[in-house]
């Protein structure tokens, strides 16, 4: 069940587009911000709100890699490993996350604190390697500072 808050937010967004369908991506974001991920029931409900068939909603939601279809940890680490970050040592960071937190790509730590998502280029090549934690941006990562940063996420 979508919360009242989510529903009102979706209806607010709806009012700003000429075409209700355009509201779909923003609406899915609203749901994900609230729940961390987008459950099938949520897709169906969003579909009802926007008068879009639920199968169509699913087709759209699964096309975009930033929509999540299973529950995630409290904090989502989105680490870029594309070429620029790779040559500046991103892969090593992935290994360290595994060693330190037992965190695998697309996995979540046992305590539900962190989830790890490997990203394609996040536009920080000049200050690589870089990551987003939830919506916070962190670059010039090193084997040391990455953990200082992460420790601030409880």
């Amino acid at each position, binding site marked *: 069940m979508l919360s009242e808050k989510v529903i009102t937010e979706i209806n607010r967004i709806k009012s700003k587009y000429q075409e209700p369908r355009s509201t779909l991506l923003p609406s899915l974001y609203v749901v994900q911000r609230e729940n961390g991920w987008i459950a*099938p029931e949520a*897709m*169906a409900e969003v579909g009802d709100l926007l*008068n879009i*068939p*639920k*199968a*169509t909603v*699913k*087709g759209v939601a*699964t*096309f975009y890699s930033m929509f999540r279809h299973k529950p995630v940890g409290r904090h989502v680490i989105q680490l870029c490993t594309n070429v620029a970050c790779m040559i500046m040592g991103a892969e090593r960071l992935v290994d360290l996350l595994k060693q330190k937190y037992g965190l695998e790509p697309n996995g979540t730590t046992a305590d539900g604190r962190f989830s790890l998502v490997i990203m394609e280029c996040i536009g920080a090549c000049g200050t690589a390697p870089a990551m987003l934690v939830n919506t916070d941006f962190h670059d010039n990562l090193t084997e040391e500072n990455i953990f200082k940063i992460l420790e601030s996420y409880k």
Partner: protein
Amino acid sequence: MITVTINEKQIKLEKPVTILEAAKVAGIKIPTLCHHEMLKPFGGCRLCLVEVEKLPRLQTACTLSVTDGMVVRTETERVIDARKAMLEFLLINHALDCPYCDKAGECDLQDLVVKYGPTTGRFAEGKRKHPESYDDPIIVRNMERCISCTRCVRMCNQVQGASAISMVNRTSKTYVEPFSGGRYNCEYCGNCLTVCPVGAIISRLHKHTYRPWFIEKNVDTICSFCGVGCTFTVQSRGDAIIRVVPEAGKGVNNGLLCNRGRFGYDYVNSPKRLKSPMIRKDGVLQETTWSEAFAYIAQQLKTIKEQHGGNAIAGVASARCTNEDNYVFQKFMRVALGSNNIDSVAGFAFAPAQRLFGKIFGQGVTANPISGIAKSDGVFTIGGDPTSVNPVLGLQIRAVAQQGVPVVTVGYAAGLRRFSTNRLLPAPFTETTLLAALVSELLKKKPLSGEKSAFGEIIGKLQSISLAEASEVCGIPVKELEACVENLSGVTNPSVIIGRDIIQRTDGHTTILLLAALVHILNGRIYLSSELPNEQGLVDMGCLPDMLPGARPVAVESFRKRYEEFVKGEIPSAPGLGLMEIIEGIKAKRIKALYVMGENVAFNVPGQKFVKEVLSTLDFLIVQDIFLNETAQRAHVVLPSLSWSEKEGSYTNLEGRMQHLRKAIGGQGIEDWKILAEISTRLGVAMQYRDAQDVLAEIAKVSPLHKGISYEDMDGGECMWPYKGEPLRHDAGIEGLSMPDMKSLLKKSDKSKLYIGIDKPLFHSASQSRHSAALNSISSKPYVKIGSSIAKRLEVADGDYVSLSTETDTLELPALVFADMPEGLVLVPNNVEERGAFKLLPWKLNAVMKIPALDGIEVTVTKSERMTAEVAA
């Protein structure tokens, strides 16, 4: 004029088409996969790449339109290499399980690889893994074979409008999935099966039961489920139907089918089929021989006729039987038995409505091609959900809706939920008021022009009622009504689609008048939805108490005489009784014997309780059918007849199109017309027809509508009403008809009360479909649809049982909860023995038209103790 050169061949074209179409004109074949003639171009598979002069890149023939002077080459080395490359790519993730795949032998990919493809694949790594899905009762999904052409998804979205499946994910991880990921829970039209070029979606009905090359017989015939009359090819082996396949460009359906047509055929192979004639001896039906049965029937009918006269005998014809069957039936009743007491369920709504519209606008006003809907600039539907009663007609509505044409839907039509511009849900049985208001408003915007017509007079007499007043009565905001009027006043040639539910009312006749007024003002085209395949045929063949073949009143002496000359016999001059009157006649002991051909009177007539009691009081009941239905169970004699696929004949669909039914398979039993002929002959009225063709030949002589008609005419396609004959110019006039009075229009329905309405399920029509294993596997359970407000009040969730009681009876049914149901209405289908809506209905007539009146029947709904979540689809 455009000139293009393809492979050095010059082609002249009127208008720009795609390279693919241009090549087709020139007889040049360009291989394709994602392209399908019924779908918009996609350009994904890249198989149709061709070389176009002046364009550096290869171009997709399916998407690029030709321009004057364009030079195209489709068989250069570059093109051939590209083709090979695309096929090699496609095989990377395509399971090479052809020996095991049902599609082998009719698989586009297989054929293309054989023709153009690489002989070996160089892709070394493992293919995508994706277990075959058997979660659905009808459709098997094998995504290891899917080539992402998206044809099924585009069919489901663009054409069917169901949008039940979609492509999920991206990259080579893309595949097709229904929302649930397992069961489809869709409309089960199966049109996705038609367009899948490979074996990615397969019908479970015949999985692994045959190879395409095992098919012994291909017979083009007509579907037996509804009044649309879709064309398909029955593919059979021995006397078993393997599958039915439609074909783009053929028939009214142009390649499409609905779930009933595509999967419901299997009832003909049901083990429950009647195999031998039966006579009731010492209270039980016992098998007997045909000759004994014939002799017995003849002798019984003879005595009853002698003792009580022909009027003591009545007959019920069948909207599932052919024109030939029904013609012989009325002849048998009139000539051999001397009775005009002939009717059918067509007499409940289709025939009387058509009659009334005919009186107003002239005979044949409802005979309009379904394809016209797609050309109209507006749609008005009322009286049921066309997408479930006549699904393939419904698709035309969805199609125009997608082109942005205004669609006004009055009443609960879930299938048009996403396709209605104005969705009006009036309080139960207040449609008449709504119509009166719409007519009043539209008259202001579009006053009647031209010379005064009799009907114009009648319209003029309508006391104008305001949207505000209607809003009060119907419980629809004035804004919505205004928006609807706004849209309607803009249209110039709308399609008006009218369903049974609006006619079977106490005030059905006045409602029809208002609808006629609306049609008159809007210059609309009328479509009467028809639940059965041959309702129009019943009318045309004279299976009505007062009409002879060719829709000629029996009461008019000249017509009667003409008929008598042809049939060489006397017939009663007075019109007979309609079906409802017949049943009352039986009750009153005026009718002693009833002859039922292919109809389930005990089930399909509202007020089952009453009807069953009455039927059991008959002196003599003969039932001729393919199943031992509720009526047959009460019969004195039961005769096994043949199903639609087992005999030749013709159906006339709701648009007034005669179509040729061909014998596809053999079956136990005898053609209905032949049975009647046998008995007739034994009654002293000889009928010597060798085959259906002979019967049609006689129809062609007797009926002024069917002058010289033949199966060839039908096979020619456009065999539309009035066929080759002439319609009756002026049917008895319309004086005596009058608009409803203000008082009745302003009467509010009691908000505290709940009323029962009839639901028309997509998956079942009635007596036949319930013997289809396939349709039952989709949905076989009865149910009641209730609005969420009622659900909240009763604290019932989807699937919970509720108990429904009317003055007549009580039923326990699982509830399906819908947020958008109109207040005060619960919907129950009539498709399951002993648990159908008609069981709850009392015996109630529209006094003027002598048809069932299903309005204003109160029902009390309570939460039931039974809480098993027996889920009805």
